[in-house]
């Protein structure tokens, strides 16, 4: 029997050609007598081609694994092969004067450190927290200066990235929040540190490190199953005061699920509506208005894919599956420079990553919909998937309609698929697919259908601890169709569609603890089919009517820098330069200057060939913000933002409806321009458990689109003749008090805001209200929301939601008269009156099954009442002529309390 040392020094000769790991190992085992331990799955990609003679085992392994992510450790008669990190055989508990590292460690000064992934479950929690992690190339004496530590913060149970977790070194007061990948990069002085890690809904944890040089540390956090007292601090709360950003609301799915909705299913967009500065024109609409912007000025992103119609079933449901959504972020003021193309806000909805450890799922049953989601590893700890689906069985509801509508039907479904694959330490691939479809038919006559389809692939690459990039390529699609074949003579099918091809590259560079730079570029190619009407059926005499397709390219480059001038004063400055080109083939009409765009004023028209640039618009967009800390728990912030928007919703209604179309900017329709200044005051109290903020803003909008009277929007060959450019201004103040921890949590918000539009250019067509400012359709000065949740026990909680807002403006017919040979109606000034104020109270109870961790399924009930007080809020007012008499009516949708019940099961 040879000693370990002997066999380690034993010289062997090998000859491998594309050898798989099994061949490689068995050959070495036979030649050395060592026993190898490895995971065949991890090494299935390894192919060894190597010729060597008279080398030690260590030398052979060095050669075989050179320039790969594979590592080995030799201990006694055993060889451990690992991927992604080295296995250290010493005790990890670090003593400062630790014995010199063994030969292998010195030869392999890699950055690998954390092997918690597999071991953590066995290692007691306290041990992880007390263990000292050595980062970087270990040296006997710690050099002076700084080094960068980077890594991912993940959920230990599911492997999912934790967004917005704060990684903080209390000694140097250096800290930051993880990005959307759960990634962080922190530059610290070399030496010993204790890092505090706090994540929303996660147990706080800490890591003790010795930082020798640049290195990586992945941190896994445990979910906060119950609300224990010592973990009342959430990452977000610190961020509220500390971050430079302002006008940002972050909500995780937990707070979203607490809020009662009409049909008992958690609804992302309904919750957004309760945030300060966000308003809606009415119930059963999904369009929302942020700080005086119209519904199309919100960029709605689902995992970086643009969702054009975020609603289902007449707006009663939003298009986001609550079982898949992880969190949402709404940017109202400081819009990061990497986003562009919309004036008012960015709503960033992020889905969860699949569980990388085991298969799990959940299902929910409600009055109108059912949901199912499954997730699990494809390759354990490396590649995971998450799938969610939702469908409705609402036809029973329609059967309650009057007889004339008995044959109506409505249905929708949506499907989400996400795949996350961590290729190695430096590369991660994210794949997402989304599809939603709505169908409804009016009494077997007219069929409406609309659909979102989105897919994208993201590749995140870490160049080093300080620099990473994300490259995205994707397609976003939205279409709708209306078809009728009831009367064979005029059977028709009308289509609208938009395709958006995206390419984006974002770079994030942590220069030093005080300075972070991000830069990148994006390109969007739009292909829009504004309307195509075709006969449907052999007998149809409908003449095809096609509005020419539109094409455009929207490119942008951006650069942003976040810089801490002092520990109290930080600024963030960004510039985005967008370049838009409207492309052929297209025929563009020219209008006589200084005359309204009317058919009679068309002087000429030009036809452009394919991909010919018809005209371009370009300009810089500035994103500036600054924060000054006043003490530990208070700060003031100021921001200035400018935005440009090249694609416009054309809608006669104030909400988004499935028959709205979009229009690209062209020589006759200028891009919308927006500017906003805002000022905010933030204060956290009671150990950050109560968060208060006051924000004021003033905003101007140029080239805001409004409509001429009697505008025809569908199949309009000359839509510019029905559009007018207006100016807009909006201002407001938003108060928010939020408590996210403790038995009682929730928020109260009050917003006073005004939004006005003005059309004072007589050459642009009609003056509105004599060229004075008039309130926009969604100008609702007072808006109050209360969302409260009280937890009686871990298994029982109640939620109460109260909403009050001023009624929206309306233009009323106030008299009639005879003129020009016909009866005419005299209208009030535009939006001079208001519908009655809105008030609603909702209540729900959430009952959880038992909390035993090890059981097959967990279930929960949610029971509640929507519109508890039964107030008949006006959904709309309308005027109807009967027998020559015009009468006004007010229609309420939820005029009585609506009880609901929902059953959810997790497995």
């Amino acid at each position, binding site marked *: 029997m040879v000693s370990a040392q002997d066999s380690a020094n034993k010289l062997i000769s090998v000859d491998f050609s594309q050898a798989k790991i099994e061949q490689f190992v068995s050959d070495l085992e036979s030649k050395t007598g060592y026993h190898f331990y490895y995971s065949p799955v991890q090494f299935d990609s390894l192919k060894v081609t190597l010729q060597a003679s008279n080398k030690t085992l260590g030398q052979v392994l060095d050669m075989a694994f050179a320039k790969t992510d594979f590592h080995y450790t030799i201990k006694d008669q055993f060889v451990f092969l690992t991927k992604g990190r080295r296995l250290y055989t010493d005790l990890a508990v670090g003593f400062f004067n630790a014995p010199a590292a063994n030969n292998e460690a010195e030869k392999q000064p890699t950055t690998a450190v954390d092997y918690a992934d597999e071991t953590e479950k066995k290692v007691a929690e306290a041990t992880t927290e007390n263990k000292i992690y050595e980062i970087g190339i270990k040296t006997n004496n710690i050099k002076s200066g700084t080094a960068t530590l980077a890594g991912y913060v993940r959920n230990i149970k599911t492997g999912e990235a934790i967004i917005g977790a704060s990684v903080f070194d209390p000694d140097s007061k250096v800290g930051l929040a993880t990005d959307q990948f759960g990634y962080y990069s922190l530059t610290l002085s070399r030496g010993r540190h204790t890092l505090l890690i706090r994540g929303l809904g996660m147990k706080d944890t800490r890591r003790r490190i010795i930082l020798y040089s640049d290195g990586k540390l992945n941190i896994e956090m445990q979910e906060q199953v119950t609300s224990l007292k010592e973990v009342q601090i959430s990452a977000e709360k610190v961020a509220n005061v500390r971050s430079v950003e302002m006008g940002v609301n972050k909500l995780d799915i937990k707070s979203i699920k607490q809020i009662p909705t009409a049909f008992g299913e958690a609804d992302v967009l309904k919750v957004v509506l309760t945030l300060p500065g966000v308003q809606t024109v009415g119930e059963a609409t999904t369009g929302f208005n942020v700080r005086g912007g119209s519904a199309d000025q919100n960029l709605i992103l689902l995992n970086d894919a643009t969702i054009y119609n975020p609603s289902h079933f007449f707006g009663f449901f939003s298009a986001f599956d609550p079982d898949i959504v992880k969190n949402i972020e709404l940017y109202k003021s400081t819009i990061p420079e990497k986003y562009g193309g919309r004036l008012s806000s960015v709503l960033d909805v992020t889905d969860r990553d699949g569980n990388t450890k085991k298969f799990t799922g959940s299902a929910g049953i409600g009055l109108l919909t059912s949901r199912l989601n499954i997730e699990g590893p494809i390759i354990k700890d490396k590649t995971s998937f998450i799938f969610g689906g939702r469908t409705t069985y609402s036809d029973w*509801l329609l059967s309650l*309609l*009057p007889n*004339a*509508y008995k044959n109506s039907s409505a249905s929708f479904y949506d499907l989400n698929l996400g795949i996350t694959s961590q290729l190695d330490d430096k590369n991660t691939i994210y794949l997402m697919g989304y599809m939603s479809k709505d169908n*409804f038919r009016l009494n077997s*006559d*007219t069929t409406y259908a609309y659909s979102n389809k989105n897919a994208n692939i993201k590749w995140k690459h870490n160049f080093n601890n300080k620099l990473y990039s994300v490259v995205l390529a994707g397609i976003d699609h939205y279409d709708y169709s209306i078809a*009728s074949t*009831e*009367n064979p003579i*005029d059977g028709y099918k*009308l289509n609208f569609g938009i395709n958006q091809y995206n390419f984006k590259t974002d770079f994030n560079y942590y220069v030093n603890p005080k300075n972070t730079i991000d830069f990148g570029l994006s390109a969007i190619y739009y292909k829009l089919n504004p309307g195509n009407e075709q006969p449907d059926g052999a007998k149809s005499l409908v003449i095809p009517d096609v509005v020419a397709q539109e094409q455009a390219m929207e490119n942008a480059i951006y650069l942003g820098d976040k810089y801490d001038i002092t520990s109290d004063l930080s600024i963030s400055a960004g510039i985005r330069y967008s370049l838009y080109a409207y492309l052929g083939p297209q025929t563009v009409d020219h*209008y*006589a200057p200084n005359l309204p765009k009317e058919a*009679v*004023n068309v*002087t000429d028209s030009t036809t452009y060939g394919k991909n010919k640039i018809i005209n371009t618009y370009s300009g810089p967009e500035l994103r500036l913000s600054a924060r000054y800390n006043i003490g530990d728990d208070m700060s003031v912030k100021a921001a200035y933002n400018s935005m440009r928007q090249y694609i416009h919703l054309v809608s*006669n*209604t104030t909400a988004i409806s499935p*028959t709205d179309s979009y229009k690209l900017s062209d020589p006759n329709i200028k891009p919308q321009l927006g500017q906003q200044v805002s000022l905010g005051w933030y204060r956290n109290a009671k150990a950050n458990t109560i968060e208060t903020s006051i924000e004021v803003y003033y905003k101007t909008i140029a080239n805001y689109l409004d409509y*001429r*009277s*009697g505008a*025809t929007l*569908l*199949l309009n060959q000359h839509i510019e003749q029905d559009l007018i450019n207006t100016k807009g201004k909006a201002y407001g103040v938003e108060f928010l008090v939020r408590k996210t921890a403790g038995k009682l949590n929730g928020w109260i918000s009050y917003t006073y805001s005004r939004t006005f539009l003005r059309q004072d250019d007589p050459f642009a067509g*009609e003056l509105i209200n004599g060229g004075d400012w008039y309130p926009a359709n969604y100008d609702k000065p007072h808006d109050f929301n209360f969302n409260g949740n009280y937890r009686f026990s871990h298994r029982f909680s109640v939620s109460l939601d109260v909403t009050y807002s001023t009624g929206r403006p309306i233009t009323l017919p*106030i*008299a*009639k*008269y*005879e*003129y*020009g*040979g*016909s009866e*005419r*109606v*005299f*209208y009030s000034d*535009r939006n001079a009156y208001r519908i009655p104020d809105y008030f609603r109270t909702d209540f729900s109870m959430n009952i959880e099954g038992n909390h035993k961790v090890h059981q097959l399924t967990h279930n929960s009930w949610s029971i509640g009442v929507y519109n508890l007080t039964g107030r*008949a809020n006006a*959904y709309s*007012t*309308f*005027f*109807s002529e009967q027998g*020559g*008499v*015009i*009468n*006004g*009516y007010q*229609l*309420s*949708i*939820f005029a*009585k309390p*609506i009880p609901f019940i929902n059953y959810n099961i997790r497995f």
Partner: protein
Amino acid sequence: MESLLNPAFGNDMEREKQYWFFLLTVAAGWSLVTCRKPYSPPVISGNNDYLVVEGVIAAGSDSTIINLSRTVRIANVNAINPEKGAKMTVDDGQGANYSLIEADKGRYVSTSLNLDNSHRYRLSITTADGQTYVSAYVPVKVTPPIDSVWFRTNSTGVNIYSAAHDPSNNTRYYRWYYTETYVYQADLETKYIFDPTNPDTLKWSRLRTPAEQIHTCYITINTSTININTSAALSSDVIANNLITEIPEGSEKLFHRYSIMVRQYALTQDAYNFWAKLKKNTEQIGTIFDAQPSENTTNLYCISDPSKPVIGYVSASTITQKRIFINWTQVPDWPPYISPLVCRPDFACWPKGSPPQQLLAFGELVPTDTIRSGGCPGIDKPSWTVPAQGAVCVDCRTHPGGKTQKPAFWIDE
């Protein structure tokens, strides 16, 4: 809302509306949770009687006719509410002052004013309630002559066009007002008239005089649409092929003889915009489906209460006009007249010594021959009998707008 229930939809607005209607219906279907209540905010139910001023200050030899009325509540059936007893003058601010006289309820008239085209004129109104309204001073636009009015047949009927031009390129904005007159004839003709003034009952049905004829009527219809056009985008001031009106194929207007009088008014750009806006507002009413209505512009205001809305736009111009006639023979292939009526020979009879049969007396039945004695079925007593027809078959005046008086301008074929 009525049209929304109709499943056949012609245009895209309707489709959009239909969607919303469906949405509302779905909502309404939850009888438990929805409700529709009358909505009548004070501003609508209030008495919004704003002054409405319509008319043109005719600068030349034509009569100036200004119609004054008041708006009514939208819930009223009748929209016409003439404003009586107002005092009205036209002046140029330089001493010239002309009064208008109320010729008819709410209709104020002055004969030829022959204004100075280089002056600006305004209309001043003092209503019976003592309020004073004035218009802005408006320039006198000189209307060029109508070059021609002509018609063209196509697959859908007959289109009538006009053309005009202004060599000085000053007019640019035009409005037309037209009046159509056409011949309507009853299905059948009767030469007899029921005239119970004669002491001899047998002569109660006598021959009609030409003035009493009721077979041929003349029906006059005024414009009910706003007809405007502009040459502003053109290099020269030419209006060619301006569509005045369309007569759909098979219309009774062209079964015999038709005439149209087109009046042309030059407008200022402001006046043009007023009419353009009014045209767009048309008959839509403020439902949630509808586009935003535009506000009304006016060049009138109330001196005594400037916040009081006034409706209308006063402009001043000369007026040019042209009339054409179209005979049915000029529109080949015009579908033959098919009467919707069933006209069978009838008769009226009544016992001697009694008053004549009521239908006859009231003109519901019109005699088609002389009266004879006896022959009344079911009456044993002596009786009178006269062959007759229902008035709708022989009396063209039963047709809406039918008047037997031949207009002075009418030229027979």
